């Protein structure tokens, strides 16, 4: 298949890059200094795009590649792909669900514990040599805290299962109620926020969920409430979040995603009730390899005219 040209949009995985190089004619978007240069050399040969959460396949890119047949995303999130355009043009789209569910859920739990029990702040306290001067203060009990999940999909359900082991009552807001679970359903996010102590954003980013956590939701969560985001930065109105934290209107936050990555609001640095991670929810050795393998398997299946493993479109 090395006559088939595949475009990789950004450096996402050395392992994936090598696998693609071995099997296909690999073109790397970031090695071109200008768009015109890139399109001049490649627009008629590219038959597949491998995108990620930074650069996917927007309308402009899709329109400029007339031979494009498939977009295989190195992510489960599809917000960087113009799905409607792909559908119109008969372009297939695949993502990497399931293989990253556990890792992302683990980070959500890790962020909850880190914020509530001040794990990172305590680590800083010790490293700064402050312990001999006096004990760190008390931190809140985590077990039994009410956890509210926005989006009870694969990742949301995995978070619920973990939190239950800590005796946390689970409630959720989702597009549809899931009667097969025992969790308490709320038909809107405000009611969910009012009735939980930790609000976790675990849904997909769509037009409907853009800024789903706004000022009103943050106020409903309140000065004792904690917000955890392992979805997409744009789920939360970030300036509202920052001012709520600075003014003490929100009790704490654990964030893995931001509206304008890799920029992180510097006003959050050094707040003891905030924990910041650089979008690493699925970044383990095991999972990144599994995601890469899934991307490759989908591409191979497509070009061998076999059924796709994890098609979205």
């Amino acid at each position, binding site marked *: 298949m090395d006559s088939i040209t595949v475009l990789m949009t950004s*450096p996402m995985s050395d392992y994936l890059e090598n696998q693609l190089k071995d099997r296909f004619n690999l073109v790397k978007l970031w090695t071109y200094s200008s768009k015109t240069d890139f399109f001049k050399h490649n627009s008629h040969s590219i038959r597949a795009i491998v995108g990620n959460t930074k650069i996917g396949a927007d309308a402009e890119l899709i329109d400029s590649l007339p031979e494009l047949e498939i977009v295989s995303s190195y992510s489960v999130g599809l917000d960087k792909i113009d799905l409607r355009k792909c559908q119109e043009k008969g372009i297939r789209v695949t993502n990497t669900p399931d293989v990253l569910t*556990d*890792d992302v859920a*683990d*980070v959500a*739990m*890790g*962020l909850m*514990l*880190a914020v509530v*029990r*001040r*794990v*990172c702040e*305590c*680590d*800083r*306290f*010790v*490293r700064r040599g402050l*312990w*001999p001067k006096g*004990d*760190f203060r*008390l*931190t*809140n*009990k*985590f*077990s*039994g805290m009410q956890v509210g999940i926005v989006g009870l999909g694969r990742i949301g359900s995995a978070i619920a*299962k*973990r939190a*239950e*082991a*800590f*005796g946390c009552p689970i409630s959720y807001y989702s597009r549809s109620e899931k009667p097969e679970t025992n969790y308490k359903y709320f038909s809107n996010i405000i009611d969910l926020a009012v009735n939980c102590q930790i609000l976790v954003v675990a849904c997909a980013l769509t037009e409907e969920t853009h800024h789903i956590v706004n000022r009103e939701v943050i106020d409903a969560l309140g000065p004792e409430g904690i917000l955890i985001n392992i979805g997409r930065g744009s789920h939360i109105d970030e300036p509202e979040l920052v001012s709520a934290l600075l003014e003490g209107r929100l009790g704490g936050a654990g964030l893995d995603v931001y509206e304008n*990555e*890799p*920029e*992180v609001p510097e006003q959050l*640095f*050094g707040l003891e009730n905030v*924990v*910041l*991670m*650089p979008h*690493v929810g699925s*970044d*383990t*050795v*095991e*999972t*990144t390899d599994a995601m890469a393998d899934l991307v490759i398997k989908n591409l191979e299946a497509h070009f061998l005219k076999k059924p796709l493993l994890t098609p979205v479109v």
Partner: protein
Amino acid sequence: MAHGIIYNHLDLPQVLVVRPPDSFSLYQSQYSHKFHFLKAWESPVPLDQFLSTNARNVQALLSCGRFPINVDLLRLLPSLRLVVTPSAGLNHIDLSECHSRGVAVANAGSVACCDVADLAVGLFIDVLRKISAADRYVMQGLWASKTSYPLGSKLKGKRIGIVGLGSIGQEVAKRLEAFGCSISYNSRNQKKSFSYPFYSNVVELSANSDALVICCGLSDQTHRLINKEVLLALGKEGVLINVGRGAIIDEKEMVQCLVQGDIGGAGLDVFENEPNVPKELFALDNVVLSPHRGAFTPETLTSMREIAVGNLEAFFSNKPLLSQVIDD
């Protein structure tokens, strides 16, 4: 609590307090109508003098959780029948000396087990997924300038070796099972009610684990239980979590193993010589350090206070103690 009534403290049962436990002011404000607290630390005279003058008839002692209750102290308390410690830990109490003198010991039972287990799991996730290190990385402004951040390690499928399957170890096991980890353990005795694989030898447990979580108490048997052999068996990818007591681990060996990369990482809430922490650990990104906060939530401190007082009340009304420590 009633106001405007002055209790004649001579009618109240005496409870000796050598050093005050955490939030002792709350014991005072809530229970001074039930007990007369004999506050040894407030006296200007040396302890042994204070005790011979004031404590000859004292039957109960409320420990602060740290000051040693040993033969030197017990010798000065001829009427002592009960030691109550608000901690779960008992390593500050000479249990066999108490036993031979007919002094019963009551501790906090399992009130702290969830909080300590939560911290153990929090430390474990932090080490594997590099949460504190990531937080530092972001705040140093490194995300924009670097293309990649070191990958973490998946929790699901990891083999956890729990050292001490008491109330804390059981809560740790329950939590980590929900993350898809598998559980094995070493304990003084096999626990037939649990189906987790039991290893009678901690080196063997370590060799068959990706992580060791130390949840046992400190005793003569567990002092330096986690030694060089155990650490090397854990291996270069292995992770060590300690929420028990610092002296269960040979700290010098552990530090050397971490610095040399003979073990993969550690999450530590306790140390041999608190509040001193080996400075070599400060330079390591694969280590998460916590200043002995496992049980320190307001809810657990309240429960510890309540159970300590409950034990004192039971004793003075000739009822069975709530959480007597049975030496086995």
